């Protein structure tokens, strides 16, 4: 075995926990409690349950309800999530870090843990995350008055939620939830490719069916009972309502889960001292990150080049290419999160190696910002039984806003911190069309999405387009009071139609120029 420096970081513990409402020992754990459960299991997996005092830093992802002002939960919360987890574990580490929001944060926390260890700021770091949104809904239905509020005034590095994923204009024009933003991006990608709605839906089904197949064999997955065919995924039927245009329920991240995961990252010196077997040590070979502006400020609405940049650079840092990777886990909250990433590095959706180790967010489960902690834990377990093989975990945050990729193997490797600043520099050189806040006149569509109610009726549509006169980009919306406009989307006839857009105090609205009513 090649020599690695004593400050080389190694992942020595990994664990996941799931509880379901029908489980015989269902404990209705709070987000703090379920996160602590996975952390406890990860310490045991590392063989460090009885020497947890070595942990000098505990990091957690940010739960959904701490991630935006309108997401506050019904049962109270911890004012200091990482320290509340510490209390459950009977630990008082010197440093507690509470990540910002974003699905990219698990990989970024692991990178930060590795950097701290390499720099000598830490010897042992516990990285964890979890959600209990299924339990929250279950207790709400029961009319429970459970109190999950708790607090600690011990020190914490609180990175606060990320609140600048979207522009004010995007939010005001009805893009108020992730499916709507992703719907805009998915349709933009489809329209730019010149593909019709039906064909694109079939492609999305084909992309995600292998994810469902992996989940069906994963005992920790939310969706285990059934392997879906591509057609099953995109056929609108009972249990698969249309959420937004272009996504039926089965293609959308499933956040009604109770899942947590944790990793233990320590220095090689400590691993040697604790006699942790070398075959249980997993190394971070390369990682990179890149971020985007809000979607209407990007050059192309259906492209987020940050993912490709981060993936290629992570591979480069690990001295390998996609052929050298045996296992992948691509963040899969919606199909475009996967297609945007794999197209950029030349992988196809039917790659025999598979694109997930867990089953992905719609089928394994999408526990908010901590999904990729599961991907990382699953990857570590997988690499330990396949020594020398390489695995790639790719994590996406926000609205294709932030991407983080890491490459792992049991093969020892020297560690070298890398901050991806040059990638961000490259991203900042992009130029986007001018954005017109008060658009007036004829325009063409770049993208659209439609919001549906629970009965499958369209309730509002948001478009992003370009003014014919100036080529400036604009956003506009219509609601239920424009049924003939909504009908055009329902009939999948919007792609080639031009629109007339008008600004007003209530926001920009539009009609189709050539709107012939079909009543």
């Amino acid at each position: 075995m090649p020599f690695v420096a004593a400050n080389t970081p190694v992942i020595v513990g990994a664990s996941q926990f799931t509880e379901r409402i029908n489980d015989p020992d269902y404990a209705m754990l709070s987000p703090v409690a379920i996160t602590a459960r996975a952390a406890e299991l990860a310490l045991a997996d590392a063989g460090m349950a009885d020497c947890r005092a070595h942990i000098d830093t505990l990091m957690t992802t940010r739960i959904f309800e701490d991630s935006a002002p309108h997401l506050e939960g019904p049962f109270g919360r911890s004012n200091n999530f990482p320290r509340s987890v510490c209390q459950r574990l009977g630990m008082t580490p010197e440093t507690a870090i509470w990540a910002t929001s974003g699905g990219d944060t698990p990989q970024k926390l692991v990178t930060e843990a590795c950097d701290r260890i390499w720099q000598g700021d830490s010897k042992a770091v516990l990285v964890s995350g979890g959600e209990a949104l299924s339990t929250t809904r279950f207790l709400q239905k029961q009319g429970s008055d459970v109190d999950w509020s708790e607090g600690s005034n011990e020190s914490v590095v609180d990175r606060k939620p990320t609140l600048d994923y979207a522009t004010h204009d995007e939010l005001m024009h009805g893009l108020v939830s992730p499916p709507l933003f992703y719907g805009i991006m998915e349709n933009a990608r489809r329209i730019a490719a010149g593909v019709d709605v039906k064909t694109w839906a079939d492609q999305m089904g084909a992309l995600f069916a292998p994810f469902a197949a992996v989940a069906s064999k994963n005992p920790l997955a939310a969706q285990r009972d059934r392997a879906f065919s591509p057609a099953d995924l995109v056929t609108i039927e009972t249990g698969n309502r249309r959420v937004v245009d272009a996504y039926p329920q089965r293609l959308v991240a499933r956040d009604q889960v109770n899942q947590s995961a944790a990793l233990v990252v320590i220095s090689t010196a400590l691993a040697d001292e604790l006699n942790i077997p070398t075959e249980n040590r997993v190394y971070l070979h390369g990682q990179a990150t890149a971020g985007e502006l809000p979607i209407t400020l990007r050059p192309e609405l259906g492209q987020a080049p940050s993912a490709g940049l981060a993936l290629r650079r992570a591979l480069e840092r690990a001295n390998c290419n996609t052929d050298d990777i045996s296992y992948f886990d691509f963040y899969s909250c919606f199909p475009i999160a996967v297609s945007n990433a794999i197209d950029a590095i030349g992988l196809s959706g039917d790659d025999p190696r598979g694109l997930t180790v867990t089953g992905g967010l719609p089928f394994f489960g999408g526990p908010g910002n901590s999904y990729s902690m599961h991907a990382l834990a699953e990857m570590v377990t997988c690499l330990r039984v396949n020594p020398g093989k390489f695995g790639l975990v790719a994590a996406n945050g926000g609205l294709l806003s932030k991407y983080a990729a890491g490459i792992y193997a049991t093969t020892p490797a020297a560690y070298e911190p890398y901050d991806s600043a040059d990638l961000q520099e490259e991203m900042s050189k992009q130029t986007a069309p001018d954005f017109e806040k008060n658009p007036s006149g004829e325009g063409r569509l770049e993208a659209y999405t439609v919001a549906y109610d629970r009965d499958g009726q369209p309730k509002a549509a948001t478009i992003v387009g370009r003014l014919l006169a100036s080529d400036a980009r604009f956003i506009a919306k219509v609601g239920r009071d424009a049924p003939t406009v909504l009908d055009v989307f329902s009939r999948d006839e919007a792609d080639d139609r031009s629109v007339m857009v008008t600004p007003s105090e209530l926001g920009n609205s539009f009609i189709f120029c050539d709107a012939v009513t079909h009543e």
Partner: protein
Amino acid sequence: MSDVVITEVNDGVMTITLNRPEAKNAVNLAMAEGVAAAIDELDSNDEIRVAILTGSNNTFCSGMDLKAFVSGEVPYIKGRGFAGLTESPPAKPLIAAVEGYALAGGCELAMVCDLIIAADTAKFGVPEVKRGLAAAAGGLLRFPRQLPYRVAMELALTGDFMDAGRARDLGFINETVPAGEAVSAAQALAAKIAGNGPLAVKLSKQVVRDSQDWSTDEMFGRQQDILQPVFVSEDAMEGAIAFAEKRAPNWKGR
């Protein structure tokens, strides 16, 4: 808090009432301490968005309590100024609701407020010069910033009163209302402010106030330093989502 200053909070609006009716609400040390405490509560309590300063018994304030002053009591608070307020205005908006007289220190108290609503019978003025004194609690400093130069000089040098109608025509006050209705009109104005984003309101006030001291070259940069947090605040996100969802915003003040 002593009963010479009465405070009350309703729907995010704090009303601070100067309450020494036997002395036309003249300011003694107890009142100065009471005002300072009320202002501390205003700025530290997230539930309060805006305050109204008024006086009891149909008069605003007749200035310093001279009886207390000759007995050696000075109604100044160190660092806060006359009546605990004139040198240190609050970060949140303050509205004066003036009935009757706002004279000498009383006029200076009204002038430190961001908005003034007055009964049409109200009178403003700094008569100090008539007795060989000068309006040192902000009157001489704020007149030229709040009134045209000649009018500022006229009031400062003659010590004459200005009635509410003239004050309104000069933009010295926002609105005149029939006698007895100043507080209710101030409450209507306060309710509008209390419905807006608290962080946006507070920092907007700061820019309007502080920018009077900024040069043309630096003003946009300094404004950016103050307003930057507004644009990435939870309230900015909530304001936009509430607009899209056609509901009233649920402000967090951050």
